[in-house]
């Protein structure tokens, strides 16, 4: 039996998770990127300067508007993206969460609503705004199909419960001619989202947009369900042996990915690790054969070992749509032609890095490293690698959309950009703070 002292000591260990004050304050006081909201709340208002600031702002807006009008009316004066730009090699539209809208409810509480924006990859302009269905709630980004204009969104409705909320999946289809998006609720039961681990761990839409896979887990079982959108049929793969939240590595930048040849890649944290209830980092990836009718999550999937040096220190694996490569940001690149270390251990690393992190490609068929696709030269890369998330890849893995440096210095921040032939090209007006749920 444990005692109070054990609890106090354990909680003190969590002081290690204290955020860096400088980083938090920098984010609070720095100017917002153009695509972010709450710009008015970012800076403290100084009453003495309000009038002058207002006049200056009005003058600036008028000037910018006039210049913009002149430019758009002169043929050929719009800043063109060169045909050779790698921006042409990625999907023309992407979805990103819009700014939060806060409605004060009193007693220090707010109601939050959030839209999703459809943006142009080439210009960074917002082409359409998708509002949450019904009366309020938030809309989040869950994925995109390969047709460039079908997106999977999740709508979360406000509930009376402070602990749980219910989410439903929607498909948004964008019409670039009318610049309108049609939101359709999927015939998939609402799922409960809340603080207890378990529930939905990941969602992905198939490349052809006809199916949606949802990964569920709890303390007793894990399963992946594939819902057919046209006819509503469901196929299920389950794993019921004792396991501790094996999908815990999913979420954030670590998504389910689905190739055109029917392989569904998912993170599978090592079961029965030394500390059975400790959340372990992703210990390996498995590739599920979704052409089958359902069955065992393990028997119908094959492991793809990505256990790298320092205890599986990778994040955000991506199975290319041709199903032939897996691309991952790695702390310590594996020598080309070599396989990563054995993946049957659960040892955590000590975080000491000896080499430059990279985005690396591995062959699905051989498991060997086939290419280092990019290595960014930031000052302190060790602290930034985890944000180097992959969002999209072309079928062969030669063109990627990743989160990369917005400028030369380590303080420049991050932006979405295209990584192609070892070169990073930022997307226009796509700076982000932290990980952002974006889908291409």
């Amino acid at each position: 039996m444990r005692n109070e002292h054990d609890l106090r000591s354990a909680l003190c260990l969590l002081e290690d998770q204290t955020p860096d004050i400088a980083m938090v304050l920098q984010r609070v006081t720095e100017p917002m990127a153009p695509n972010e909201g709450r710009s008015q709340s970012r800076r403290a208002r100084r009453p003495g300067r309000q009038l002058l600031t207002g006049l200056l702002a009005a003058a600036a807006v008028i000037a910018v508007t006039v210049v913009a009008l002149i430019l758009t009316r002169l043929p050929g004066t719009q800043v063109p993206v060169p045909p050779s730009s790698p921006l042409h090699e990625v999907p023309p539209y992407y979805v990103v969460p819009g700014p939060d809208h806060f409605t004060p409810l009193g007693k220090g509480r707010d109601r939050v609503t959030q839209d999703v924006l459809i943006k142009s990859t080439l210009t960074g302009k917002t082409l359409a705004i998708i509002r949450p269905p019904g009366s309020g709630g938030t809309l989040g980004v869950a994925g995109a199909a390969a047709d460039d204009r079908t997106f999977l969104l999740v709508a979360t409705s406000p509930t009376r419960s402070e602990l749980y909320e219910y989410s439903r999946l929607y498909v948004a289809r964008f019409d670039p001619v009318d610049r309108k998006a049609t939101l359709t609720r999927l015939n998939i039961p609402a799922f409960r989202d809340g603080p207890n681990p378990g529930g939905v761990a990941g969602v992905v839409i198939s490349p052809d947009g006809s199916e949606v896979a949802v990964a569920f887990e709890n303390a007793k079982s894990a399963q992946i369900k594939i819902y057919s959108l046209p006819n509503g049929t469901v196929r299920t793969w389950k794993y019921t042996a004792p396991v501790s939240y094996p999908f815990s590595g999913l979420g954030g930048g670590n998504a389910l990915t689905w190739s055109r040849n029917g392989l569904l890649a998912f993170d599978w944290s090592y079961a029965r690790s030394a500390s059975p209830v400790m959340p372990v980092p992703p210990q390996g990836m498995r590739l599920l054969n979704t052409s089958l009718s359902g069955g065992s999550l393990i028997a119908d999937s094959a492991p793809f070992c990505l256990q790298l040096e320092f205890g599986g220190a990778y994040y955000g694996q991506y199975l290319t749509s041709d199903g032939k490569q897996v691309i991952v940001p790695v702390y310590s690149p594996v020598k080309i032609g070599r396989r990563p270390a054995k993946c049957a251990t659960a040892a955590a690393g000590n975080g000491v890095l000896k080499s430059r992190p990279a985005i690396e490609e591995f062959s699905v068929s051989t498991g060997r490293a086939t290419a280092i696709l990019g290595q960014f030269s930031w000052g302190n890369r060790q602290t930034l690698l985890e944000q180097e998330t992959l969002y999209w890849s072309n079928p062969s893995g030669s063109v990627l959309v990743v989160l990369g440096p917005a400028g030369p210095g380590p303080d420049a921040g991050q932006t979405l950009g295209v990584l192609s032939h070892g070169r990073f090209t930022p997307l226009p007006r796509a700076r982000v703070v932290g990980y952002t749920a974006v889908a291409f």
Partner: protein
Amino acid sequence: VYKQTEPTDGGRVVTFEEFAASRLPAVLAFAGVLTGQRATAEDIAQEVLIRAHAKWDMIGGLDRPEFYIRKMVLNEFLSWRRRSWRLVHAADAAGATRQPGPSMPDHADQYAERTALLAEVGKLPRRQRAAIVLRYYEDRSDTEIGELLGCRPGTVRAHAAKALSTLRIEMQPDQATLATHREREV
């Protein structure tokens, strides 16, 4: 409610900069322990401070701005959504590999026990988790915790009791008495 018991700053309005210099580190540590994940704590702190910064004229005039900010942090934590859908860091899993290792001064088995305990703490319903963090990390009374969570001290005790039972933590009789006694003093 924010003007009752906490030591005041002499009635002077505390500037945001003063608050950041003197009180923010403790609030951030609280957010880190509460969430157990630096990235989430950072996001929550950022959300809270952006809003607090915008209305600092009001908050800075309170007798207990730190208490108010903690309450905002708690509310944000209690309503924080699953990370898949929102603006979050991708650092959570990578961060897990950088937990302090067995080279800590503790014995390895003690460390393993504490990390296992922490994992169980992470699975508690958020209100229960908040209650035990406030009680056992911040050493706050049940009355104060009730004030922060917006419930009665009896409800706080119920949350804490459920959490302790889930975590299989035995309260020594003298500690239970002490807790009750502390309540009476408040």
